[in-house]
């Protein structure tokens, strides 16, 4: 039954997360200015506390709203403080979302406490995720996988404790042979080779990782090692996208909301109000723009929530998660850009956070599948087209 209200527990956790976000906000400029600097231990501790408080609330008795939906709601709050800093403390990387979606109970127990990054992209490809050339070979003698290859753009690749690596077990078999493997950082043969200097999200490192005869136990593969042909749903590692996309989309929502709220606040200081009962002929240009942005963000948020709620109900959400990611990524990007413009000199200044949110937010149009890739997925599904029919 249609219900847009959250359980008291979620609302309480959300409030706590929002308070924690204010703390993140207070330190987020520093780590933007100091790219690649380790977060100070006392700050990590404070964040871990906030995170633990939220978890405690969610563990209280009473009904829940579903794990993925809750994660999405809380991640938006956290991201409104800083889209990246929180992850360092909550030990939640994109790899964790993938593990949450497809790992066995045993694997969840082994890896759930690790901060897991996600390694997909390689120097030779970006959006064409089927072009993975990193290999995973099974050494039947030791029952270990041997990984070889190079990964780039690994978000939190330095800070994480393990990396979920996409590799092919059989290059001749295409997408179905691409599997994801949990590679703990202590394994031999995994090396950090480069840290990127980025436009934004500087509080998080973006690393290149080299895998040279890196051996991991057989059980570190996520999902089945079998190479099956696709029938309908996502195959192999690709299924994890359905779980990670709502998460990254919620990051977009959080950053855009921060920018929009900040802009509204500054405008309110200048005496401007935002009436919801008026039409275009009674609004100033700035009022109209703010309301348009609010509506756009609402539409995006509802789509993202829906896609996460479907995951909780174990409904196939490939269409909806791409719709949400595509809409949220673009809407958030544009909202942050407009907020900087509306704020004038205050928007452009590095003394405030609006310009940082604009830089940070742009990543949402790009990573975990660009807006274009999301649209491709949406279009194929509404058309019932194969990859060959719509390239």
């Amino acid at each position, binding site marked *: 039954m249609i219900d847009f209200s959250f359980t008291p527990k979620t609302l309480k956790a959300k409030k706590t997360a929002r308070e924690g976000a204010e703390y993140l906000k207070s330190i987020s400029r520093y780590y933007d200015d100091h790219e690649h600097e380790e977060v100070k231990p006392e700050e990590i501790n404070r964040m871990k506390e906030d995170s633990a408080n939220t978890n405690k609330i969610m563990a209280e008795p009473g009904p829940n709203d579903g794990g993925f939906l809750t994660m999405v709601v809380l991640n938006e709050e956290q991201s409104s403080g800083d889209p990246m800093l929180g992850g360092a403390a909550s030990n939640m990387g994109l790899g964790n979302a993938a593990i949450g979606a497809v790992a066995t109970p045993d694997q969840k127990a082994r890896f759930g406490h690790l901060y897991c990054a996600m390694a997909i992209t390689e120097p030779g490809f970006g959006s064409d995720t089927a072009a993975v050339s990193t290999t995973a070979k099974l050494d039947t003698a030791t029952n270990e996988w041997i990984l070889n290859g190079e990964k780039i753009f690994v978000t939190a690749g330095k800070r994480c404790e393990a990396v979920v690596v996409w590799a092919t077990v059989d290059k001749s078999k295409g997408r179905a042979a691409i599997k994801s493997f949990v590679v703990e950082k202590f394994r031999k043969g995994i090396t950090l080779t480069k840290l990127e200097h980025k436009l934004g999200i500087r509080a998080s490192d973006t690393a290149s990782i080299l895998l040279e005869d890196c051996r991991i136990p057989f059980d570190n593969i996520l999902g089945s090692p079998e190479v099956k042909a696709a029938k309908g749903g996502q195959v192999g590692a690709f299924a994890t996208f359905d779980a990670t996309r709502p998460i990254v989309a919620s990051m977009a929502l959080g950053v855009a909301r921060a920018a929009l709220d900040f802009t509204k606040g500054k405008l309110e200081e200048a005496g401007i109000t935002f009436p919801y009962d008026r039409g275009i002929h009674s609004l100033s240009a700035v009022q109209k723009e703010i309301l348009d942005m609010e509506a756009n963000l609402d539409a995006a948020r*509802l789509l993202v929530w829906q896609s996460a709620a479907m995951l909780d109900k174990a409904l196939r959400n490939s269409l909806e998660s791409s719709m949400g990611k595509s*809409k949220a990524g673009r809407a958030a990007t544009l909202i942050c850009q407009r907020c900087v413009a509306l704020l004038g000199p205050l928007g452009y200044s590095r003394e405030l956070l609006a310009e940082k949110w604009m830089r940070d937010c742009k990543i949402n149009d790009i990573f975990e599948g660009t807006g274009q890739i999301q649209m491709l997925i*949406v279009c194929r599904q509404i*058309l*019932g087209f194969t990859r060959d029919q719509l390239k």
Partner: protein
Amino acid sequence: MADFTLDEDQKQIQDMMRKFAEKELRPIARDCDEEDKLPADLLEKVWELGFCPNIIPEKYGGYDMGRSALNAAIMVEELAWGDASLAIGALSPLLMAVPILEFGTEEQKEEWLPKFCGEKFYPATAALMERRITFEPTDLHTTVEMEKEVMVLNGAKCLVPLADQAEQILVYAATAKGAGAAAIEAVIVDRNTPGVTIGEREKNMGFKPLPLFPVTFKDVEVPMTRRLGGNKGIQFMRLLNLSRANLCAMAVGVSRASNEYAIKYAKERFAFGEPIASRQAVAWMLGESAIEVAGMRLMVWRTAWRLDRNEDATRDAGLTKMYCADKTMLITDYGVQVLGGHGYIREHPVELWFRNGRGFDTMEGLAIG
């Protein structure tokens, strides 16, 4: 607990309305548009679906099946998917029935509601819009004086559905100009009251089958018993929000109709040796439209859900209205664009949805549920 899925009852009414729209509205939509006609037998067919008696309590002669803005939104999306003009026309009695259910005094309910429970279509309507470029529903220029023993109405309304045949018109008027929503009253006016003039049927770009009329009020005297809500009056914003939710649901229906048709066409039409949908530029228009239809629908549902909980829905309704008006234009424009030259001719329905699609920005208060 958050949930974005319809329950079984809702799926059933959705399905029922979809079938009705497919069988009764779609086949006649083009002819009705070309000939500006709203067939009388269609009014009766929709009447038989029981929109009015279903939501009216038994003591006034209804079936008392509960009233829900959300369910109404689900239903009218389907009807508007069939044809928005025909839907608005056939549902116009709700324009009076719903406000009475919301705010009528016991006496008013007893007097009026049984009329909406009969076997035949009971013609009633409401008048909100006024013909000026800067029109705002919360800033009406039609006034009602209430100092005397009778109320006196003055002003001019436009876009009043079925005003030519309505027994009563629920007229929205301000006790003071510029005093906003709080100063707005709703007055039940018999069409034949002296001083009420129904003008010539309006001609518009879209919603052509829908008979819309300008209505002027010159020193129209109405007994105080016709003030909706008696001394308490009405909460105008709630009625406006209910109307916005309902009209936006129709906008979703029109948008979805256009998007579905364009998807089908783009798969079947070949150019350069492939279906045109195989080109990203075409596919993108379809994809963007599909995303927006889904987003609009969730916004409408949330607005309606909030109204059903008796919460203040002004923010949701206001944003949804703005958003749906813009996106409906975009989506119905894309519908024509995907069909290209074929979209421009009146053999395909996309140009009709394009014309109707633009109307949602302008028209307020033409539907409620």
